[in-house]
Each structure stands twice: as structure tokens, then as C-alpha cells.
């Protein structure tokens, strides 16, 4: 029951997102959407995923998007209706919904995902790895290589931001350099020349 309430709420928020033109409102709506998703994960007993969704999706992403808004404008350009993108989106959505029809029921013990390595993790992880939280055992030990990849992705993202947007230089060095002053003098003389030329 609560699943349906949360899913309908997510759908309503998604519709609001699509209609909203103010980017600040869009960012906040995204946060609400993420938080509802986190609630849904809690209801489905995936507390670790819910925790990550709440911290990363609802928390940090929202703050980072707000920080990004400081660099851009807060209003979206008015939308134009085009047939082709609408067709592509509708088709993709229909295909995705068609794909979900073939999925096993939620919580079905005979689903393929519960037949492969999951029984081994549940039965043996306490003896092989130790931690009572099986999710930690899987993430850090059984699938340590994957987690290393994720960490490297995050590291690369931060390194890329540092390289592209530049390292921080303190305000003290804001004193104009000789070159800047020379450029400024040149532009002011050019401005003065232009002013002289424009006024007869």
C-alpha cells in the first residue's frame, strides 16, 4: 500500500519537474524525488541503498546543483514543442515498461538474482569475512574490485573539476599584475580613441 502512495508521489513530483521552468525549483524538486526514492528503499528493506540515496541523491546532489546554479541562470529557456523528441521519449518509455513486464515479482525467491551468488553470501559471509552487515562484506570484500573502480571514478571526477575549473588562488593575489595593467591601459586608450572618433 505504502509503495503505491510513494510511487504516485514520485510520479507527481516527476510531472512537476517536467513542467517547472524555474531551475531553482527544479533542483529542490529533484531533492524531494530522491528523498521519496530513499523512503521507498527503506520500505523495501534496502537500508544501505536508502542511506546512500538520502545522503548523495537528496543531500549532496541538491547542494552541488544549487552551487552550479550560481554559475548559470536560474530560468530555463521557454520550451518549444517538437514531434520527433516526443516520439523518441514515448517509444523509449514504452519499451522500458514492456521490459519490466518480464521481470520476476518483487521478493520472488526463485528469481535469477537469488539463485546465483546470493545464497553463498548469506550463508558463508559470517564465516568467511566476518561483519554482521552482509552488504559491507559484499561491497568491501567480495566485490572489493568493483568498489575500487567506483572510488577511482569519484577521484577522477574531483581531479577533472580541479583541472578544468582551476585551483583556488587566494584573494590576496588579486593585485593586478603588470601585464593586466598594460592591457587595461591599452583598452582605456582604445576606448578613449573610440570616444574621440565617435564625437566629432
Amino acid at each position, binding site marked *: 500500500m505504502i509503495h503505491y502512495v510513494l510511487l504516485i508521489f514520485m510520479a507527481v513530483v516527476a510531472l512537476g519537474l517536467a513542467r517547472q521552468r524555474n531551475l531553482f525549483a527544479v533542483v529542490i524538486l529533484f531533492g524531494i524525488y530522491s528523498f521519496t526514492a530513499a523512503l521507498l528503499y527503506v520500505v523495501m528493506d534496502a*537500508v*544501505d541503498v*536508502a*542511506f*546512500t540515496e538520502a*545522503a*548523495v541523491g537528496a*543531500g*549532496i546532489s541538491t*547542494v*552541488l546543483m544549487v*552551487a*552550479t546554479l*550560481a*554559475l548559470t541562470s536560474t530560468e530555463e529557456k521557454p520550451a518549444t514543442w517538437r514531434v520527433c523528441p516526443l516520439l523518441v521519449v514515448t517509444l523509449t518509455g514504452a519499451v522500458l515498461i514492456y521490459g519490466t513486464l518480464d521481470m520476476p515479482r518483487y521478493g520472488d525467491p526463485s528469481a535469477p538474482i537469488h539463485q546465483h551468488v546470493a545464497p553463498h553470501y548469506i550463508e558463508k559471509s559470517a564465516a*568467511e*569475512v*566476518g*561483519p*554482521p*552487515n552482509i*552488504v*559491507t*562484506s559484499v*561491497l*568491501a*570484500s567480495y566485490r*572489493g*574490485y568493483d*568498489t*575500487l573502480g567506483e*572510488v*577511482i571514478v*569519484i*577521484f577522477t*571526477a*574531483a*581531479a577533472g*573539476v*580541479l583541472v578544468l*575549473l*582551476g*585551483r*583556488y*588562488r*587566494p*584573494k590576496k*593575489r*588579486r593585485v*593586478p599584475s603588470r601585464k*593586466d*595593467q598594460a*592591457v*587595461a*591601459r591599452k*583598452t*582605456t586608450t582604445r576606448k*578613449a580613441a573610440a570616444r574621440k572618433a565617435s564625437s566629432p
Partner: protein
Amino acid sequence: MMVYKSILRVSSKLLIPPILLFALYVQFHGDFGPGGGFQAGVIFASAFILYALIFGIDTARRVVTGWAVRLLLAGGALLYSGVGVAGLVLGGNYLNYSVLADDALVGQHLGIFLVEFGVGSVVAAAMITIFFTFAGYRNSPGESLPEESGPEED
């Protein structure tokens, strides 16, 4: 990005220590309950981001200097991969923690602890870096135009 509201200032000062403490709890209690390096890193970074939002980017940068964040960023990644290399040196596979100690379970525990710590520091440093760079972009002198920095002479 700076707010001169005394209520926000006081309440954020009250909030930041518990946030940091909660991040450490999530980091080191991840073996027993929900949580782990990723979540802890994000929560840890959010404390500094809150500080930067209320007290300004420049003040926050004096608290967490650029080299400290970069050290945390690279150090975390190196710690994680270093644990893997240590497993190789001690005669196991890459990222096999069982060989880190005499007892396999103790080795696993040590390995998971170090690896989660690496994850936490990379995530925290990455979030702090990205926020500070985005939010402080306008402050950088590279952005200012030459016309602004030079004095108008006429």
C-alpha cells in the same frame, strides 16, 4: 555565498560537531549496521559545505586548505589500492584481505576497515573539492576581466 543571519550562524555552529561525529559513527559502524565509507564521506563533507554556506567560501577554505583536501583525495585512493598491493606482497590475490593478518577473519576485518576509510576520505574530499570549486569560481582572479583590475585613468 555568505549569510549574515545570527540564527543561522549559531544553529549551524551547534549542528556541525554532531554532523562530523555522526559521519565518524557511520564510517566505523558500517560493519554492524547500515552505512559505510560512501555515506560517511558525504556526511563528513556536508558539515564543511554547511560551514561554507553560512560563513563564506573564503573562511571555509582557511579551515580546510586546498592541499589538505587534495592530500585526502589522493591518499584515500592510494590507501585503497595500497591495501590491494599489500595483499599481493603477502602472497594473496589483489584485494584479498585474508592474508593481511595471521587469522583470516582478522585480516578481513583490517582490510575492510582500511578500505572503507579510503572510500570515506576520497568521497569527502571529492565532494568538498567539487563544491568549493563550483561555489568559489567567481572569486578566482582568472575570471576578472582586465578592465576591472586596472585603474581607470581618465
